């Protein structure tokens, strides 16, 4: 029973991690790649670590450390991705030519217009 749950959770985590890796390989520009890295890689890590917690028990040595790593990744990965996206935008990494919206540029343009008037 417990082994089946472990296998299912590990398979879900592995499929999500594989999807994130393929997304990082195939996406057209750095912002789409950051999206794959921040959400899908984190979402792939959590079920795999929960599988270890289910298999070993949450109070065992391995299970408690797996919970700690899961909490750390859940907090840390989105923050790092946000800092990376901000740095990429500020250093002028070009967007994919098919991108339809750049809200930061639009907001800055409307603010500059407001100051000019």
């Amino acid at each position, binding site marked *: 029973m417990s082994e089946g749950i472990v296998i299912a959770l590990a398979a879900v985590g592995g499929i999500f991690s594989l999807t994130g890796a393929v997304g990082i390989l195939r996406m057209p520009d750095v912002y789409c790649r950051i999206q794959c890295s921040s959400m899908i890689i984190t979402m792939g890590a959590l079920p795999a670590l929960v599988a270890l917690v289910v298999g070993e028990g949450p109070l065992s040595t391995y299970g408690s450390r797996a919970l700690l790593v899961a909490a750390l990744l859940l907090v840390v*990965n989105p923050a790092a991705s946000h800092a*990376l996206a901000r740095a990429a935008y500020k250093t002028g990494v070009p967007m994919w030519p098919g991108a339809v919206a750049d809200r930061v540029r639009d907001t800055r343009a409307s603010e500059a217009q407001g100051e000019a008037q």
Partner: protein
Amino acid sequence: MSSIYLTVAIGEVAIAALLLIRLASGPTISDRIVALNAISTQAALATVFFAAFARRTVYLDVALWLASFSYLAAIVWSRYLERGLL
């Protein structure tokens, strides 16, 4: 049960090897940092599962170190890209 852990660890390492393509060929440096961040997440996961497979608690500390220092590396790299200083 331990064979499941070994399979998961090997799978995460294979996914990290897939990400090495982006790390080698990323057109900008931001792409490489994104790939490196994902690789270190996969490395932390693989280390946790290898610790559970080999019954060595020492590796758990290595995984915690990897998970926290990959964050530090990403923050330092983005700060360097933004301001040109560390």
